[in-house]
Structure formats: C-alpha cells, structure tokens
C-alpha cells in the first residue's frame, strides 16, 4: 500500500490528525492521488467548495459602530483585593513584631524617692556596689599580672 493509500485509509477510519487531513486534501487537489472513485472525488470537491463560501457584509448594530464610544477601564477586582490583603498582612506583622520587641525589652527598675536624704542614701549604696565590683575587678588584674611576671616570659 502506498503512502497515499495508507493516508486515505486512515482518513476513512478517522485516525488522521488535522494536519494529515489537510495534507490528504492538498494531495487530492494536486492530483497526486489517482485511484479515487468519482464519488470520493465529488466528496472532497464538495468539502473544498463548501470551505470557500464567504459570508455577506455584516450589519452591526448602530451603537457598536459609534466610534465615539466612551472609554471604559476594566478594573479586575481579584488582583486588587489580593494586593490589599498582602499589605494588611504585612502591616499587621510589623505591628506584632514591634509590640513583641517592646514587651521583651527589659525595663529598668525605677524607684521614685521624694525624701532627699533617702535619695542620697540610695545613691551612696549604689556607688558602694559599683566600687565593690570595680575593686574586685582591679584585684583580679593585679593577681593576674603577678602570676605573669613570675613566669619570666617577657624580659
């Protein structure tokens, strides 16, 4: 069976693709397939003739032909709503983060004292605590330096 015959058989079995059908019709029109019956020729001629029929001029409604139609802008709600929702989520997230940050920040212990003598006493205590820790620090340094000099590393 020739390639043309095969194609023709495929056509009658409705196994051809749209492109193969175009190809078959083109081959028949060009006269490349000769072993066709008169009825097959008529059939394919009929298909061809039908596909060449043209529509008459269309009469559109007057309003559609009015070229001064007002320009309308189509607003698509879904993307807009999506954007608004995204901004709201972002804003809420930022508010939440800021609040979280503020709550974790340790607040300094503040004592309000009205009596000046008591205020002085508290201040003295605070400085004493400070100097105690400072002295501890300097003693540690002196001890450390003593040890280092004993080692005779640096002369």
């Amino acid at each position, binding site marked *: 069976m020739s390639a043309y015959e095969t194609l023709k058989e495929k056509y009658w079995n*409705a196994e051809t693709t749209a492109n193969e059908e175009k190809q078959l019709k083109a081959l028949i029109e060009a006269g490349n397939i000769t072993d066709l019956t*008169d*009825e097959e020729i*008529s*059939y394919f001629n009929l298909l061809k003739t039908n596909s060449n029929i043209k*529509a008459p001029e269309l009469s*559109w409604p007057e309003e559609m032909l009015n070229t001064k139609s007002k320009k309308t802008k189509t607003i698509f709600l879904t993307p807009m709503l999506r954007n608004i929702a995204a901004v709201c989520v972002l804003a809420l997230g930022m508010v939440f983060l800021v609040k979280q940050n503020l709550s974790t920040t340790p607040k300094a212990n503040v004592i309000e004292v009205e009596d000046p003598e008591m205020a002085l006493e508290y201040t003295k205590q605070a400085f004493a605590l400070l100097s105690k820790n400072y002295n501890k620090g300097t003693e540690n340094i002196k001890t450390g330096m003593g040890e280092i000099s004993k080692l005779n590393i640096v002369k």
Partner: protein
Amino acid sequence: MQNETIIQIVEGFKDKLYRYALKMVGNQFDAEDILQDLLIKVWKKKDEFSQLENQEAWCMTVTRNLAIDKIRKRKVKTTDITEHFGISDNAPTPDKITEDRESLKKVMDILNEMPESQREIIHLRDIEGYTYKEIAEIIGMTEDQVKVNLFRARQRFKEKLKVLNI
C-alpha cells in the same frame, strides 16, 4: 474591550459562522438572519464577550442554537446543493458534467441519510478544520463522543461508496 476590537474579532471568523448557519438551515436567507441575530447577541453581551477564553467557539455555539431555533419554527426543506456550489473544475465535456452531477448527487444522498450530529461533525472537522476539543465545545459533546461520531460518519460513507461502486 473597545467596540472596534469586538467587530474586528467577529469579522475574522464570520465566514465560518455563515457556513455553519447555512449548513444547518439550508438556505442563505435564514443563514444571514442568524448571523444578524448573532451580532445583536454579541452587542448585548459585549462585556461577557470580552472575558471569554474562546470567542470563536462561543459564537459558533450561539449560531448553532439560533439555527436550531429557526429549524424548529419551520419545516426544513433541503436544498439541492448543486444549485449553490460548483462541481468539478475539470469538467470540460457535457458528459463529464452529467457524470459529476450524478456523483455529487450520490454523495449528497449519503450525507443526507446521516444523523444530523454526524453531518455537523463532518462540517466542523472537514470543512472548518476544528479540533476534536473545539468541536466538543461547540456542540456540547465530549471529545470521545466527537471521535466516535466522526468515525461512524466516515465509515458509513466509505461503506455506502463501496456499495455504489460494485
């Protein structure tokens, strides 16, 4: 979508719409009426039309529905196809012309005996070149149903031709 754009789109496939209407109703006057009715529908639903994914398929479906309505309102008289369409271009002699007319008549008889759905599918596939998916969308069938109907239509045609040529 601008009116001019809609007009341009529909003008692009008006021939297919007209041929389909003509095939359904069998005469050019009713086919033209159907086309005009379609334009009015497009105008009335132009906002919806603008949003459609496949505007051509929608127009073809509306054309089909309008044609069915028209057919229901009257009794369809099948026209002699040879009055409207040319026969073979290679028909130099009167004998050949007669032979061609006879062959064409046989073809038309076979086609007219087919169920309407099969004729419709042959038109949409073999004349307009639509895919199975597009045909399914236009006439409201599944793709498989379209394939089966096309197979049956072509097989029927082939068998009838065999009988005629024995």
